């Protein structure tokens, strides 16, 4: 899992069957110092509560599909937690 910062939202009315009700957010991946690293990705919000500005962690590829209920394949990134704190 990687750290990310939610920077925006995506609204899509026309989606493949099964993606109804799934929220999509724009996530900027972060490095371990919480600095932006790489390009932003569009992630499904498996928590239904994440929003812009929040520090989150997300999974990619197959594990992203596992995050949705019911499990659903056409998702490649999913937010699975909101970070309260990272301490050494």
């Amino acid at each position: 899992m990687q750290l990310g910062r939610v920077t925006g939202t995506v609204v899509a009315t026309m989606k493949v069957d099964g993606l109804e009700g799934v929220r999509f957010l724009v996530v900027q991946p972060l490095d371990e110092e919480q600095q932006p690293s790489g390009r932003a990705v569009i992630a499904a919000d498996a928590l239904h509560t994440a929003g812009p500005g929040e520090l989150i962690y997300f999974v990619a590829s197959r594990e992203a599909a596992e995050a949705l209920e019911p499990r659903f394949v056409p998702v490649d990134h999913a937010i699975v937690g909101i970070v309260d704190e990272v301490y050494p």
Partner: protein
Amino acid sequence: MKVGRVAATVVSTISHPFFDGQRLLLCHILDSGGDTTGYTIAVDRVDAGVGDPVLILDEGSSARQLFGVETGPVRAVIAGIIDDVDFGD
């Protein structure tokens, strides 16, 4: 499996139900020279602590098998604490 070192604890109150009660640790991934090549947030199964060199399983179906579940958004798991590693020359 990858070799890593635990760098920090990640605290998360709101998370996917799979992670309820699990400890999440931010680990640096190390190459054979001991240099950091990146990081991952892994679920701790061995009571590792910050600073520990660890063995990181980074494959989803093996991770799910370790947790005894068929589904779950897990991939990186700390599967061991390393006592010693010799990469050779």
